[in-house]
């Protein structure tokens, strides 16, 4: 085989290797959509969870939103200290939702009503009642 022909074969092999490299690069480079989807789901989860917590019925005609208002005013609901109910029931609901204690924070104003604190990236949803901000934070 002539030298020129050998060189052409070598050149052709290099071109094919470059082609494979490009295929692999584009295959693994375009994975952002999965991360965005996960973030959208978690954002929706935080928002829906806070709404579900607010609406949860504690006792006759008393929803968690009413109990939270009473907690802000330092009162009682359902024959019990409102803040104790908030701390207990919010933890129970969030635990049943599948979140660990160190992955979320529930604040009424500046006061934390969950077991642990967390840091890092967060998804947050909140609303205001009786002048206080009720905030659910999910850390990931």
């Amino acid at each position, binding site marked *: *085989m*002539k030298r020129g*022909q050998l060189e*052409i*074969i070598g050149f*052709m*092999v290099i071109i*094919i290797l470059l*082609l*494979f490299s490009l*295929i692999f690069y584009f*295959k693994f480079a375009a994975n952002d*959509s*999965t991360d965005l*989807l996960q973030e*959208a*789901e978690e954002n*929706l*989860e935080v928002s*829906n*969870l806070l*709404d*579900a*917590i607010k*609406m*949860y*019925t504690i006792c006759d*005609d008393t*929803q968690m939103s009413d109990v939270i208002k009473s907690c802000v005013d330092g009162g009682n609901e359902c024959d019990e200290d409102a803040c104790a109910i908030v701390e207990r029931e919010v933890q*129970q*609901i969030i635990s*049943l*939702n599948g979140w660990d204690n160190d992955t979320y924070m529930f604040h009424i104003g500046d006061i934390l009503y969950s077991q642990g604190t967390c840091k890092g990236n967060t998804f947050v949803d909140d609303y205001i009642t009786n002048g206080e901000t009720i905030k659910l934070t999910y850390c990931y």
Partner: protein
Amino acid sequence: METLMVAVVFMVVLIIALAFYFKFSLDSIEESGEEACLVSNTVLLVSVSSVPEIQCSINGKTENCIDTSKLIVFDPSRVYGSMFTTNCDQKVYFEQIYPEPENGTCDQNNYPDCGIFEFYDPDVSYSSSIKISTPTSLYFPLTEEYKFGKLVIEVLL
């Protein structure tokens, strides 16, 4: 003769390269299909919660919860069939989580002493499934109670 040999080698290598390329393309297309399926089902998590026929409505004002008495009788396939004809099959149901409910799928006979409210079931065979869910509030008008539940979409594979 040598030129012919070069041409033959070139063709063989090209065919092998094309075979690999098409294999990877096919895998990539399948992966895109699976991603499109997950994206459409994530959108469904929002759409199903907003179906007006099952949303809570008290004195004409809608609330962000699901009325279980409406859920029991509503058949979404008649009106919202196109919502579920995406590129993959899925089962959709609401599940009461807290307080812990009685076991069983809800119907007009055992409501409200049940835990699962089926919304849509394509009744197809499947080998495995992926579940995605979002929290929701379930309203029981008979007792005027709001309970904690989840909207579950089980993507059938």
